[in-house]
């Protein structure tokens, strides 16, 4: 019986560890996607280092898309649809958001880059997607994203699409949204 007990406890340990492993896959997945950029996910951390120089010999077209999630009543669109940039150049692009409803709503934008492999090379210095955004009833605001394209972007990419999906997160709001965006 003692023989059984030690083996059973080892096997139970494996079971418990594997249960934990299932949950560990969540952060592992995020880290993996962030490091490799393969999920079209861009970094949630502002880029602090600028490119060494501007590569004027090359042009890259950035397309901007915006899509409110189906439960999100905001009107949400980019100021312009596309922009042609040189790698290394810092640009600011504004997204327009309007809350047409009669109540305050907090939004969270989630970026996605395609082709996914290009995500690693699109650096955001500042982005409205880093924080939750709060908009009072009937108000509008401009939401900027400041970015540059890494000159190391492989040559096969000439167009990068940056899409933001906007979610209504009022229900989970902790009061930490960027309050300076209240009103216009």
């Amino acid at each position: 019986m003692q023989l059984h007990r030690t083996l059973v406890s080892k096997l139970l340990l494996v079971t418990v560890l594997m249960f934990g492993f299932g949950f560990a896959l969540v952060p592992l997945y995020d880290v993996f996607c962030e490091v490799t950029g393969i999920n079209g996910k861009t970094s949630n951390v502002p880029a602090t280092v600028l490119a060494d120089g501007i590569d004027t010999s090359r042009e890259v077209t950035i397309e901007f898309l915006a899509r409110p999630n189906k439960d999100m009543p905001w009107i949400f669109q980019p100021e312009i649809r596309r922009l042609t940039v040189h790698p290394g150049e810092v640009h600011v692009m504004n997204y327009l958001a309007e809350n047409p409803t009669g109540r305050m709503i907090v939004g969270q934008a989630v970026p996605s880059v395609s082709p996914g492999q290009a995500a690693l090379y699109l650096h955001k210095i500042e982005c409205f997607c880093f924080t939750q955004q709060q908009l009072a009833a009937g108000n509008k605001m401009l939401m900027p994203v400041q970015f540059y394209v890494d000159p190391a972007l492989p040559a096969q990419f000439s167009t990068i699409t940056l899409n933001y999906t906007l979610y209504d997160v009022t229900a989970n709001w902790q009061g930490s949204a960027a309050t300076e965006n209240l009103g216009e």
Partner: protein
Amino acid sequence: MSAITHEHEHDHDHDHKPTGIKRWLFTTNHKDIGTMYLVFALLMFFIGGSMAMVIRLELFQPGMQFVEPQFFNQMTTVHGLIMVFGAVMPAFTGLANWMIPMMIGAPDMALPRMNNWSFWILPFAFLILLLSLFMPGGGPDFGWTFYAPLSTTYSNDSTALFVFSVHIMGISSIMGAINVIVTIWNMRAPGMTWMKMPLFVWTWFITAFLLIMVMPVLAGAVTMVLTDKYFGTSFFDAAGGGDPVLFQHIFWFFGHPEVYIMILPAFGIVSAIIPTFARKPLFGYASMVYATASIAVLSFLVWAHHMFTTGMPVFATLFFMYCTMLIAVPTGVKVFNWVATMWRGAMTFEVPMMFALAFIVLFTIGGFSGLMLAITPADFQYHDTYFVVAHFHYVLVSGAVFSIIAAAYYWLPKWTGYMYDERLGQLHFWCSLISVNLLFFPMHFVGLAGMPRRIPDYALQFADFNAFISVGGFLFGLSQLIFVWVIVKCARGGEKATAQVWEGAEGLEWQVPSPAPYHTFDTPPEVK
């Protein structure tokens, strides 16, 4: 040796054995528990099967005839769940309970009381799942794979019951697996060394490890679905920083090893039956053991072949494509060994052998369609079509289920003490063989032509094939009634079976009398 032990066993056969329902409720005897698992699996096979009949009825003609789309979705979902967790897995556990102690010369399973528990929680799991179908809003309808956000954002109120029942099924399988490992590890008779163990024991040993490694991951996945749906977490919700694709990674990390959980014991069964009826020892025993182990290891490295169309980068698809194809190598070793075992053997073709032979051919067809699916660019076309349905039914129905049926015929005389009716058995075999191919083979064609799976209606050009498939399905369902008839008839009586039952059978289980006494190997046999 054996004769003496049996006299002795027969004496206290009638001792302390409660009668009536109490015997079954409180039993810790591996044979009783094995029987209960097998009967339960058969019952679930018919319940899940009747759901498949509803599916085939609706798909008999294009257009919507009999059921609502949402109910159709519930049928595909619960059919899958019941067949995987209620029929195939418990059937294998039942066979393990009955046969492993007898094959290794142990008096019982190592943890008999846990054994009782692991069986008796199962009926509750399935009762909950089945009753959830009657809730307002219906039962689970997101597919057996319960992809988020179908199972989170868009699922109905029965989802909590689904999660609860999957947890119970998982706990049951984990307890069963621990029991198998401890039994094999600690309770082998003197002389029963690792490399003398029958392959059924080996394959189950490895399966049990797969179970304790992946069932907890499934438990994690359903837990995350539960908290996402009811408690405001966002594991799979992009709005809260989660990712629905993450669900698929977690699910298939469980899911692919799970398909091997459903096939490795089948390999063990076929490796027991082929040598018996070819009257030759198994060809390449050691390579069979290593092949099984390498399949188990590789099964952890291929999960994303279910996710080629999620937009993975090229290097990842290549990695998973090559790893998947690599699994075909040890699988091929097995098929080769079975064929080599039969080569120049003195073969006879009783029902277990027929099912085992059909297994080899039809499982191989399923393996080939699997290889086609593993080719990433081709999978972009095949994914989520009936081609995938054809693939996994070849490996699961004419693979896993046929092996279970073969095992039942092979060991029935040992269990009941009577020979089954050979003529009826052959009838069952031929009806099953023909109808299973009528049912699943044309699915390859409609799948290649683009008919999507899990949809209650289809384009007109698929009408003839679908009518044909449905007829095959009804015939296959009816054929299984013959199986029940054979079992009932065999349990009631018939020609007395000898201890060895089959002329070519070898191994400890054939040294005890038929029917196997309630207690076997109370004193361990000596294995030479």
